[in-house]
């Protein structure tokens, strides 16, 4: 598996640390209530198809990257720096 780091280019997946759903980008406000926080912390979809998750280029430039990929075909169609993603 190869992931394109926006800083470093295409690299082997061994250079990356996998975090999970890119839902992490949208942290609820402290007073958003238990449901919003449960969804943020624990509830995850398990899609057969397009998914968006966070990878860390740990053995590279140290960038957190939002990766759009397909869990069925394994195709990766987009990678962006988490710091630049609009939310």
């Amino acid at each position, binding site marked *: *598996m*190869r*992931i394109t780091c926006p800083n470093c280019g*295409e690299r*082997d997946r061994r250079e990356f*640390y996998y*975090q999970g759903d890119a839902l*992490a*980008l949208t*942290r*609820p406000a*402290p007073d958003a209530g*238990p449901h919003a*926080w449960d969804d*943020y*912390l*624990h509830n995850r979809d398990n899609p057969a198809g397009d998914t968006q998750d*966070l990878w*860390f280029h*740990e053995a590279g430039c*140290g*960038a*957190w990257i939002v990766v759009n990929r397909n869990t069925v*075909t*394994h*195709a*990766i169609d987009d990678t962006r*720096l*988490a*710091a*630049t993603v609009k939310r």
Partner: protein
Amino acid sequence: MRLQDPQSTVSFTFDGRRYRGVPGEPVAAALLAAGVRLVARSFKYHRPRGIMSAGSEEQNALVTVGRGPQAEPNVRATVLEVSEGLEVFSQNAWPSLKHDAMAVNDLMSPFLGAGFYYKTFMWPKPFWEKLYEPVIRRAAGLGGLSGKANQDRYEKAFAFCDVLIIGAGPAGLMAALTAGRAGADVILADEDTAMGGRLLREVEDVDGQPGPDWAAETIAALSAMDNVRLMTRTTVTGAYDQGTYGALERIAGLRRAGKPLECFWRIVAKRSILCAGALERPIAFPNNDRPGIMMASAVRSYVNRWGVAPGKAVTIFGNNDDAHRTARDLVAAGVKVAALVDCRDDVQVDGDFPVYTGAQVVATKGRRALERITISHAGGTRDIRTDCLAMSGGWNPTVHLTCQMNGRPTWQADIASFVPTPGNVPGMVTAGACNGAFSTAACLKEGAEVAAEVATGLGLKPKVTVPSADDSAYRISPLWAVPGQGRKWIDFQNDVHVKDIKLAAQENFRSVEHMKRYTTQGMAPDQGKSSNVVALAVLADATGRGIPETGTTTFRPPFVPVSIAAMGAGSQGKGFAPERLTTSHCASVARGAPMIEAGLWYRPSYFPQQGETHWRQSCDREVRYVRNAVGVCDVSTLGKIDIQGPGAAALLDFVYTNTFSTLKVGRTRYGLMLREDGHVMDDGTTARLGEQHYVMTTTTAAAAQVMRHLEFTLQVLRPDLNARIMSVTEQWAQFAVAGPRSRDLLNSVLDDQIVDADWPFMACGAVDVAGVQGRLFRISFSGEHAYELAVPARYGDSLFRLLTAQAESYGGGAYGMEALNVLRIEKGFTTHAEIHGRTTAFDIGMDRMISRKKDCIGRTAAARPGLIDDDREQLVGLKAVGAVKQLTAGAHLFAQDAAPERVNGQGYTTSVAYSPTLQTGLALGFLKRGSARHGEVLRMVDHLRQIEAMVEVCDPVFFDPEGGRARG
């Protein structure tokens, strides 16, 4: 029998007997040349088996190479190169290959069919594990391992290219030539020892010259190109995501100590062209497994390429025109053709040998090797004396790699085979025989054209020129299984025959995947390469479906067996994990300190002195150094993270539960870090070196995790903060100097004297040590008046030697991990034994450290009702009070009168120590409502180590609870 006298030979042994072979030829060729026909016993029935193929698809001739720890089982004799002194052994036979006692299984075969184990050995149940399974396991199987550590060397490597071409037959060579001339970076990989594929085996002309000559010329042309890399003996074993391919290279030449045997490659290619060719498939006729019965193409390989006749009177049995060339080649080589048997009626063959059309082989005879066959044809049946039968049921394109990413192949009726479905593997295209193009001319043409398309796609300008070659049509009439008495083998490697598959269908295992598991068809090391399509056809017939409706099983990597040693090359022993050594490592080892692993780091356990016979003596002495004089300890392994920028303070306020923006420059503060789910992640001290400059310390264990967490916070959660972070763990050597004489010791090494007024508890700042700029922190993990002194790592070794020498002059010295642990337990300081991922700030008594004035990571979740429940297990100290003084970590706590069972559990211990200061056993642990139960006496039970003790619950800070010693 050899057709020509070889120029030079080497000697090798097979089952202890000496044979001659020609360097470079496979062991299979040398054995055939010597007339050895029985080479193996089959997996389940121990039937005599011989050499069946001339390639990596070999099902029968599996052998063991070498002996002892060097022994490598299940090597295919058809790809094992002969070399001087090579030792080869047969497998799965006892006491010998000729007289195999387990051949009794074959007599019992009527009872040992598919599903036999499931039906027979189900009852009585306990017998399965104790009796049936061990007996069956001993009886069945192939080669074994020695059980000793493998001393052989293996390697792994990475390669990158524009175009990976898999297979160097006519299609692959033309593809490489076309892509290479266009300027692409090409890797051409072939599993054979030489490139050329079928051109090495067949008698055909290309461009007006013999096939092998054209191949040699083409290879020479490719070798001359800087942008083309040729890899022989290299099997591409798997196709993975984003153009990554696995490949196994067998290293050429003699096997000898120190030289790698194999290299596992990871090849990344922008595009790939599969030119893997095709595999000839057997025909299922009665007793088609006797030594001497082999594939027709293999016979041509041995005759044409290796100059070896596999028999004295050869019969050919086939269902396609391609089989006929076998007879032609044998005659040309001067080998007698006993008969040509073709199942089709309308075939025309010219030759000086008997031809039977509309005929089939219906029986074979010969105990340890083929002696005669019986055929049936329009005129009745006929016996033929023959010692070698060349069979051809047609060709299966080698589609495996195209199916490894969940794709299925497509049935093509005119060639009665599956061909690749385009687009199955992104970036991969196919050409030649693996694509169903079976003539040499078609292979050359497809190879060139497909490579031209690929090169064009890469922005290059290729030219296509295709040499002329044989273009005779491939005509076939499907023939899968011949009717008649006797077992008709399909999967030779797993001993599956036609009746097994019919039985599966009869018992309603009609799905191809169910049939596979019921019969074990295709589950041997060869993964059914040669047999799967025949099995499918038989299943289709038995279930009244067509082959495409029956479908195929899933092909998974690897295409050929890959030894774990090759995939894990470099990762044995010390190579398993990198070693991180501190700057004081050499000095510590020189002092005789046993080093223990802390993550990847190595740290000294203790520093033994003369006369000490037990680690506890050393440890207790080192604890007393710190409590009474001064101790020195390398703490460089703690994570150190440099944080700078206008947003640095806000970042720390957000990741720590407490506030760091209010910390004064030149001061240090303890910080507690939570995960977003409210549990404790890590703790440590952070010093403010400047208005916009902090340096954070983490625990040794969590250094990488905290670094990742800080980057996550900055980039994902708070990109608004302008701060930068950098791990500086390896840049600074840092030493704890702890004890009542610590200031005196420092003043003996610092360029400028320090006084308590300038350096109160938790102060930090720059100092000079013998002219070297360092950093000093007045922090304590021992509860004593203490400092940590940091210098650039290159001065660490000399500073450690200086500090320990000075400490000894004050009646102290170096201390290791054991003493460090005792000191922190006496003070109730937590480590990851306590903050083990399930504990909250509330549990360790630090909930007051969660600031109410600001948001921080984990603050909201930490307030969830379940995480602040009074019933939770809370951190407590435990003191041994009964007759048994030994406390153990991981033991469970019970009320004195309760049975020590899970339901009565009150808590558990996490860290234990013998305190030389308090002269008793101490433990930290977690206890339900613990902070309200100080003074209670409980029972500690360690079920694993069979230890029981009485403990008194107390405050976790056992020693100097007011903290006066650290502050004073």
